[in-house]
């Protein structure tokens, strides 16, 4: 059994190297297919990261009157905190707000100068409310609008929903295009593998005839071509790993420039999930290749 297995692998390697150009084309097509699949994955990951980052920043500001009393504010804070839709409420006093403002504009002497000339604190105390999740955002806005405490000066509800929907729709469109492209490449891969195996069998038809004549079993005759599929998948995935990581490293600075202030790190993601991502691709690639080989073998190796 062991010898048989070693021989089968030897035969399939021989078969790959005997038709080296065809094998190279096969692996290159496989690489293209894997590349589109990984691009697809990348777009999906960027989309998810962007949505997550935006979701993290979603909050609703309730601006209070400057003269509002501390205990009234805290009572309102507690009331809002009790709402189902609320994850947490942060109270920023006007002193704190001023401090934050100064910090933010510390490089801008004109603003700081204007502030000093005002001589009073123009900033209002604020309640910063984070919703539990995006789905309850509308409900939360309605609830906050319904509050009639007279210490509330104004309400500012930025429409994050529209932004997120835009991100989602872009991700969705790119994903659709990616799936379409991947499907085409996977189909091409199947055809190319099928053809490689067909040619390999044709090249070896004399050898196959002899094998049958001397009593080799069918699985021994067919196995090398299935193993070839496995070997193609192995080289394809190995190559895509060698190609994709440098590609991501090149891309990363642009992504960071594009998503300033957000934590979007693809390289981390692809390193952290390397075994899952490429393991799955190897598995799927092997299955697809063996499937294509199996059809070709079933059709052409009967002598």
């Amino acid at each position, binding site marked *: 059994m062991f010898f*048989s297995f070693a021989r089968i692998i030897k035969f399939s390697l021989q078969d790959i190297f005997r038709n080296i150009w065809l094998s190279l084309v096969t692996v290159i097509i496989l690489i293209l297919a894997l590349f589109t699949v990984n691009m697809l994955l990348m777009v999906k990951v960027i989309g998810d990261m962007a949505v997550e980052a935006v979701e993290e920043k979603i909050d609703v500001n309730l601006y209070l009157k400057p003269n509002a009393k501390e205990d009234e504010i805290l009572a309102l804070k507690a009331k809002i905190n009790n709402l189902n839709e609320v994850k947490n409420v942060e109270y920023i006093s006007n002193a704190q707000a001023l401090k934050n403002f100064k910090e933010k504009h510390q490089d801008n002497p004109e603003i700081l100068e204007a502030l000093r000339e005002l001589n009073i604190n123009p900033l209002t105390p604020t309640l910063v409310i984070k919703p539990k999740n995006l789905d309850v955002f509308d409900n939360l806005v309605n609830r906050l609008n319904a509050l009639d405490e007279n210490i509330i000066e104004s309400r500012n509800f930025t429409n994050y929903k529209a932004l997120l929907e835009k991100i989602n729709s872009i991700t969705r469109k790119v994903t659709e295009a990616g799936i379409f492209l991947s499907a085409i490449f996977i189909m091409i891969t199947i055809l190319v593998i099928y053809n490689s195996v067909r040619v390999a069998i044709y090249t070896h038809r004399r050898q196959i005839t*002899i094998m049958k*004549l*001397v009593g080799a*079993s069918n699985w021994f005759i067919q196995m090398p071509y299935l193993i070839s599929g496995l070997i193609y998948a192995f080289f394809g995935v190995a190559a895509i790993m060698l190609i994709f990581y440098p590609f991501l490293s090149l891309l990363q600075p642009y992504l960071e420039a594009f998503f300033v202030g957000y934590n979007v790190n693809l390289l981390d993601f692809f390193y952290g999930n390397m075994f899952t991502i490429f393991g799955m691709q190897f598995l799927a690639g092997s299955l697809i290749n063996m499937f294509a080989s199996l059809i070709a073998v079933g059709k052409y190796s009967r002598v």
Partner: protein
Amino acid sequence: MIRFHNVSKIYNKSGKALNKINLHVKPGEFVSIVGQSGTGKTTLVKTMIGEEQVDEGKIIIGGWDITDIGQREIPILRRQIGVIFQDFKLLNKKTLFENVAFAMQVCGGRPAKIKKIVPHVMKIVGLEKKISSYPQEISGGEQQRAAIARALVHRPKILLADEPTGNLDSINANEIIELLLRINKFGTTVILVTHNREVVNNLRRRVVTIDDGTIISDQAVGKYIL
């Protein structure tokens, strides 16, 4: 050893390649099968190794009814029957040793066993000095002897030879027949399909004559009668 019961084979409507063949070959026999071109001799050989299925009748080999043999059992059958052909069917990119070893490798033979058996069969056919040669480097007769060596690696009980001398001159042909006789003497049943009148007449063994898919004569010590 080999029994045909009313075996018929029809490839297509043009006619029967085999027509109600009845044949019994005893263990250790040496039988020549003769007949004109296209009369069904090769078809007869093919039905014995499961390469063609018969349409009627029954074939029993060594007590095993192979009439409706399954794909999985064919390799087992073929390891018990050695076959050689007019065109040798050697692999040109392999040495003679590799060609013979190949037959054992693809059947799962262990390297140690291969190392022992291959030189042994090469010696039987008298090619022990040529094991490193490639098929193009040796004569047709030597190539056929290599093919015979390959057919012997599984120690078959039956050796089928379909026109083994068809591509050889008479000196080489005689050597091959001598070799087949020697193998037969060891106890292997030999079926020799041939066109060669001289060979058959010199053999003084059983001769079965086929014409148009039918056995028209079967003589214990036969002559080429066509």
